[in-house]
């Protein structure tokens, strides 16, 4: 009873502090939920792709680009062919967000993979959703338009 007034004052102070900083706490959350030695990488995705992912989803990231290929029995095509590769597999989505009709996901990747994904931003990127319990990483062949 002796300290009741102090306790109430402290509680009021704490409630005011937390409510005033509620937005800051939410924003800090991304920086707190990244595992050590990993990075959150922002990836712009289409509205259709955004509709199928949420925080906690597991995805593969595919990159489509033009490449000069030499296949058995054929010479290198001069024009280049459209090919798609699965660049990263079993990637955790940390957060989803939207700004000015642009949809972003923040994916959890290693610093090295972040460098590859940074380069891949110059190409066309797509994502595919995985079963969250399927953690298998399979060797993926390059897909050609002629396949």
């Amino acid at each position: 009873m002796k300290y009741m007034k102090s306790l109430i004052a402290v509680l009021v102070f704490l409630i005011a502090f937390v409510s005033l900083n509620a937005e800051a706490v939410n924003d800090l959350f991304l920086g707190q939920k990244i595992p050590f030695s990993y990075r959150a990488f922002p990836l712009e995705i289409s509205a259709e792709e955004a509709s199928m992912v949420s925080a906690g989803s597991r995805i593969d990231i595919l990159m489509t680009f033009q490449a000069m290929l030499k296949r058995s029995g054929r010479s290198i095509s001069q024009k280049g062919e459209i090919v798609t590769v699965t660049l990263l597999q079993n990637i955790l989505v940390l957060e989803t967000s939207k700004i000015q009709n642009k949809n972003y996901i923040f994916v959890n990747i290693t610093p090295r993979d972040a460098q590859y994904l940074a380069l891949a931003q110059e190409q066309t990127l797509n994502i595919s959703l995985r079963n969250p319990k399927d953690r298998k990483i399979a060797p993926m062949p390059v897909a050609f338009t002629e396949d």
Partner: protein
Amino acid sequence: MKRLIFLSLLAALFILPVKLSSQENELSPFTITVKGLAPILILKTPQQADIIAIINIKGTDNAITVLQNVQAQKAIQQGADSEITLMLSKADTETLNNLEKTYGSEPKTFLMTIRNNIDSQQYNMQPVSLESLFR
């Protein structure tokens, strides 16, 4: 008296982080433009970040992590991209200013990744190219 001590300790608890952050006065603000609008979404409060530069080295685009564990303070929109303010040491500022001298050409793009707030580990990061991925 006890109440006064208790309230003083409580006040100190909230004032101490502010005091500690003010001791980082050897850092100076430095602005760079990074690709996309994502920084605006995440830099409503300062975050610890890595900066990746895309630099063309001998005709091939390379991605190089040029800064690790720097504080990104705020972001403002610049068209389709974001201008971010980093708090950099003298050495980090020199690193950014000397990229052209170090790698032979100016960076085409900068990108930012976010790390855990209390993860301060630094790695020896080597430049990578997409060609090296398929070799």
